[in-house]
């Protein structure tokens, strides 16, 4: 008990239970005594308010050669070490093994060097949402205490050969990453300052980051002034390790994405933990973004970006002119389409990611130009963005091939003066004009709801004019109909790649051109509107005629909640005329008596007309 009172805090507050033995050998002249011995302890238990140790074994050979005390190759083994309690962070280790050598010279810094090995390490947050288990850490260390400067120096290199980490939804098996920390740092007790001369963090499949600098107010309110740099940071490794496995249940698309390239950065980090400012440069070489297997691919990507960001708080307004970097994409491929080199100026300042000059993409035989692309606060609100777009003569046959649509012919031209995030919706103004099927389709009020979710919905209105039905029916293998179609589709919503609602009014207009409909087209309209094939009837007629004149065709339709209401271009009582024959015989009308069709039934009918062999006459 008396020995305990001599120990410094907190060692004097702990309870010790066990036996120790000290063997001492003294020899030499009185004024030049040499002391040599060994201190041993076995099975000692230690208990403190926060700490418990089941079994401590110690073997510490010591030597006093005036004026130096030396403890050489002391061996310490501690079993079942625990720290903390239920209401705070807890840490534990099954076994901690240390060997250490210490030199103690009066008025000189104390230096302890050795090796530390810990197995079965674990930790837990108070709520149990952050856990670590099975940590195996091994490394050399050096501790120095300088009584003059009141400082403690820490140096060492530690490697975790094993360990599992749970951080909310994030799980990591460290065996594959073999994290290594190298540390050369000092803590000045009087100044409460932590100086990191060199700290290096390395993960095998991600790369390494060097940090140096100081943290003032280390134990109270830390204020950072650090430099960080990396020359070999692998974004693909970071994506696989941190993002994909944590979010793939929510966004299954992540399982198909791969990232490549090597990132280098250097930056200064300063401020307190509530408002850190980070500024520096980053560069990406051979970057690549790819959808597996054999989907689209963007890259190689090269990026040089000076940046200045604030986090976690909002940025301060700044009048400083942002520095401009360059983004270059050598190639991009979407299906059979390739896009050549794209270069764009880029800046990231005050959390605003801005492309100050238009980005021009030559694709689908035309050009897409995106201007004023900006994220006002890419750190705190990355879903908010705005831009404008202009499409010039995109070839629809190229576009439809890339999207695996039926081969459309025509061009797409349009201008969207502004696309802007409003809540969870990307809203646009302006109009996209498609020169399509000999006529025009104007798309307006384009909106994308929840664009960054797995259930994005596209909403738009369409106006059709001067559409050549012959081209349409040829494209969709719908028999042959000649004539001109006009009309509108309002409130069209496409969700999960399917139309979920619309109101359509499409009808032929008589411009003095020929208006004829083939037997095959008549049959397909009949199948679509009634579900029944009128093949026999038309075959009978078709024995004499390939096609018939019509005076009007069209429909009014609305879709909501999988119910399609189909009305004709003309009504008589409960009869809805989808095709009104001409006055001259032979006259063929298609009359619909059922106006409500379930979406599943409509799909069945579409499948039916798709599988029907065209009747060639």
């Amino acid at each position, binding site marked *: 008990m008396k020995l305990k009172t001599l120990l410094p805090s907190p060692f004097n507050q702990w309870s010790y239970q066990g036996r120790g033995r000290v063997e001492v050998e003294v020899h030499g002249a009185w004024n030049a005594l040499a002391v040599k011995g060994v201190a041993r302890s076995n099975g000692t238990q230690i208990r403190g308010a926060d700490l418990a140790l089941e079994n401590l074994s110690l073997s510490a050979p010591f030597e006093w050669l005036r004026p130096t005390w030396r403890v050489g190759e002391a061996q310490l083994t501690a079993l079942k070490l625990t720290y903390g309690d239920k209401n705070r962070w807890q840490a534990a280790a099954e076994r901690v093994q240390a060997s250490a050598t210490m030199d103690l010279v009066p008025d000189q810094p104390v230096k302890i060097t050795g090796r530390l090995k810990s197995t079965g390490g674990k930790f837990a947050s108070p709520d*149990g949402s952050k*856990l670590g*288990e099975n940590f195996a850490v091994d490394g050399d260390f050096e501790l120095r205490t300088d009584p003059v400067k009141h400082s403690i120096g820490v140096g060492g290199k530690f490697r975790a050969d094993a360990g*599992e*980490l*749970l951080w*909310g*939804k*994030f*799980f990591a*098996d460290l065996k594959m990453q073999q994290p290594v920390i190298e540390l050369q740092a000092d803590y000045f007790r009087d100044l409460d300052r932590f100086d990191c001369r060199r700290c290096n963090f390395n993960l095998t499949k991600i790369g390494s980051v060097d940090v140096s600098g100081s943290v003032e107010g280390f134990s109270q309110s830390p204020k950072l002034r650090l430099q960080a740099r990396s020359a070999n940071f692998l974004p693909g490794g970071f994506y696989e390790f941190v993002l994909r*496995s*944590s*979010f*793939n*249940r*929510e966004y299954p698309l992540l399982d198909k994405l791969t990232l490549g390239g090597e990132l280098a950065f250097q930056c200064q980090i300063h401020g307190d933990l509530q408002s850190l400012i980070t500024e520096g440069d980053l560069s990406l070489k051979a970057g690549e973004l790819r959808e597996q297997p054999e989907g689209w691919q963007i890259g190689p990507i090269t990026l040089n970006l000076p940046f200045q960001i604030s986090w976690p708080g909002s940025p301060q307004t700044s009048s400083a002119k942002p520095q401009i970097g360059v983004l270059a994409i050598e190639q991009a491929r979407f299906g059979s389409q390739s896009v050549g080199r794209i270069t764009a100026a880029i800046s990231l300042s005050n959390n605003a990611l801005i492309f100050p000059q238009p980005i021009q993409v030559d694709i689908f035989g035309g050009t897409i130009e995106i201007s004023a692309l900006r994220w006002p606060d890419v750190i705190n609100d990355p879903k908010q963005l705005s831009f404008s777009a202009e499409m010039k003569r995109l070839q629809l046959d190229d576009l439809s091939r890339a999207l695996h649509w039926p081969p459309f012919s025509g061009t797409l031209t349009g201008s969207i003066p502004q696309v802007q995030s409003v809540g969870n919706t990307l809203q646009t103004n302006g109009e996209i004009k498609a020169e399509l099927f000999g006529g025009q389709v104007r798309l307006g009020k384009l909106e994308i709801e929840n664009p960054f979710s*797995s*259930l994005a*919905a596209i909403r738009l209105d369409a106006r059709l004019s001067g559409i050549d039905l012959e081209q349409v029916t040829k494209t969709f293998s719908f028999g042959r109909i000649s004539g001109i179609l006009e009309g509108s589709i309002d409130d069209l919503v496409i*969700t*999960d*790649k*399917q*139309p*979920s*609602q619309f109101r359509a009014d499409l009808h032929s207009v008589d411009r003095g051109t020929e208006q004829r409909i083939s037997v095959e087209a008549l049959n397909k309209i009949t199948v679509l509107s009634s579900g029944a094939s009128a093949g026999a009837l038309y075959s009978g007629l078709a024995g004499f005629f390939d096609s018939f004149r019509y005076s009007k065709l069209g429909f009014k339709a609305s879709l*909501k*909640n*999988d*119910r399609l209401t189909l009305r004709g271009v003309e009504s008589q009582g409960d009869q809805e005329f989808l095709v009104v024959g001409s006055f001259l015989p032979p006259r063929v009308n298609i009359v619909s008596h059922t106006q409500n069709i379930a*979406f*599943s039934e409509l799909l069945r009918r579409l499948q039916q007309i798709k599988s029907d062999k065209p009747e060639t006459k």
Partner: protein
Amino acid sequence: MLKRMIFTLIFLVSACVTVNIYFPAAAVERAADQIVKETWGGPAKPATPVPQPQSRSLFSPNRFLALSFVSEAFAQDADINVTNPAIRALKDSIKKRSDAIKPYMDRGNIGIAQDGLLAIRSADGLNLKERAEANQLIDAENKDREALYAEIAKANGIPKENIPKIKSIFAKSWIEQAQPGWWIQSNGNWQKK
């Protein structure tokens, strides 16, 4: 005299004021039973009788929606729409995920909370990888369930304020159709079904 007549007239008219509260509770119940069965394959439930719409006085604290004077228009209690592409996609997503969640339910690690959402009941027997997976599954599943309720409301013109009612009805179905041996939360306590 005239004043008295006007007062009497106003009294008679106001006495006949009826508020129809139309929240298609029975239809939502049927839809919930059907969706839970389709997605998680619960036991079939006998059809519930179609209740009449509830009628409350003008001064009831729960009133909203339609006011009708004199004549009381009973809302039809037809089935609500539970098929459109968004609802189908959410149902598919829930159904696909159910096979991954059920083993955790069987082992008692995940339970059904009072609000019908999933929650970790006990992490006993789970390693950290499994705990992370359970957390991810719960998070994704609960987001899909909340989105499903919002889509059902949207598809049927049910005001947003009533989404909690839909959630509560669905909670009943998730709990009723839970398999024996699964854990259900009741009054803050977990109980084995």
